[in-house]
């Protein structure tokens, strides 16, 4: 049944978006502190633009914009001899070969496309936040460590790979953990993007009833449904907290931080 799949959808989204956002974030952070000025500018612009736009307006806006941008590019490539303007008043018209997904495609393609679009949006938005966290983490690796590395004759790339990246995680983890919690809580927004997630199903299953159903004899089961969801999210958050604590303890081992020092003394 679709309802059970929808839980899977949420978990899948988290599984895809988490690493993707981390990747985007890492790229953004590296770009933002790159030694070539245009790359640096690009990284900083990415971080500040995405972080500057208010939350759900971004989700509503960005998906349509991305969709239209993709279709526009395909339109330019596939139908070069199309003479009519694409924007006719309020309509957005591309030739049928450029439609994404194609009108002839089966239903599951539409769903997968919608899902991927949503995942990409999430990854870009959360990537900017992760980039900000990682950027801060890279800056808080003690300067002495970097200086020592360069004193040993490592070049910029070697310092980055062998000293900066292994050490920055311990500074980044609190921020990343926070972000992960936010990401978990942002998943109900999927239904705004038209993906059949758990919130969507809640509305769908109750769809035959209108707003006035309080006089039903069996009471309203949707309360229990949302209570279940609430518990699902709370449990998820709780488990994540515990796991993050574990990872933090593991990462602090041998690091030049207070937590690492405490572990060394305890051992």
């Amino acid at each position: 049944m679709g309802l059970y799949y929808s839980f899977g959808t949420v978990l899948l989204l988290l599984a895809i978006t988490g690493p993707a956002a981390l990747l985007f974030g890492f790229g953004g952070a590296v770009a933002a502190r790159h030694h070539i000025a245009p790359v640096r500018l690009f990284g900083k612009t990415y971080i500040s633009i995405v972080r500057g736009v208010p939350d759900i307006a971004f989700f509503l806006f960005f998906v349509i914009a991305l969709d239209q941008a993709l279709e526009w590019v395909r339109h330019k490539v596939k139908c070069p001899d199309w003479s009519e303007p694409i924007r006719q008043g309020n309509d957005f018209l591309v030739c049928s070969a450029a439609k994404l997904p194609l009108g002839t495609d089966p239903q599951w393609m539409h769903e997968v496309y919608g899902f991927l679009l949503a995942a990409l949006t999430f990854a870009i938005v959360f990537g900017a936040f992760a980039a900000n966290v990682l950027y801060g983490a890279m800056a808080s690796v003690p300067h002495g460590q970097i200086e020592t590395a360069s004193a040993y004759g490592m070049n910029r790339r070697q310092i980055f790979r062998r000293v900066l990246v292994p050490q920055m995680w311990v500074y980044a983890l609190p921020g990343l953990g926070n972000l992960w919690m936010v990401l978990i809580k942002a998943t109900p927004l999927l239904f705004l993007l038209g993906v059949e997630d758990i919130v969507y199903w809640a509305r769908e299953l109750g769809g035959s009833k209108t707003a006035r159903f309080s006089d039903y004899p069996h009471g309203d089961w949707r309360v229990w449904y949302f209570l279940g969801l609430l518990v699902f999210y709370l449990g998820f958050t709780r488990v994540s907290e515990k796991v993050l604590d574990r990872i933090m303890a593991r990462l602090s081992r041998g690091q030049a931080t207070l937590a690492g020092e405490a572990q060394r003394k305890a051992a």
Partner: protein
Amino acid sequence: MSCIATIQDYALRSIGIGERLLPRSDFTLCQQFTLIGSGMIWNIYFGLFAVTLGFFLANALALGKASKNTWLRKPSEWFIFLFRGSPLFIQFFFAYFLFQSLKGSSPFFGSFTSAWLGALLVLFCNTAAYTGEIFYGALQSVPKGDMEAADAYGLTGWRRFRRITWPTMMRLAWPSYTNEAIFLFHATTLVFFSGFPAWRQKGDALYYASYFADKTFNPFVPYPILAFYFILLTLVIIGCFGMVNKRLNRHLPKMQQQKFKFRMNVIR
């Protein structure tokens, strides 16, 4: 229709005054600006009341969480975890359907299903939980020296709390609290997007913005307008909170004063 007439018709549309029918075709920029601006009344209403009332509960929660008494600590901890650990979105939905079913059993809950009260209650609890956690963190980081100095002056109990602990806690928490307030105002846009229905198309700014986006298939006009209003609102909030921050920090040398740093959150 001139722009003045549009403003007269729609400026208070979101609270039910003025023209009944929303514009259906030939949308002008003026109409979009007026209606979305009219929707902002709701955002400001929700945000203002939730922040003001939530402030008091947040203080209670922070003190409860820091309390040694288990009976005070546990409920505060759970309240904070409950509202911080789950999506606001789900909270809205859950609250709405809960009130719906309670309405069946008692007429007392009648007005809770409408947004002005039900959603306000959810936002109130939500912001109280988030703010409570901020205040708790600040309470934990009140400098030890301040407390020792208070002891040395012979201040104890309530007087020590009111004169030393609480002002310091506020001072430390204020920059984060500013962010929380901004964020709450942004979160008010979720109200009509979740369970709560917009009765007679009296919705908030996002409701009207998405109305226009639906009708015109062009998100590039209404959403930037919405963003524009929210940036204005954010600047006003930063201004107001900045004044309080100045007052809280007035005894400190300029260098030590905590500056507000704007941090955006995505969603709660």
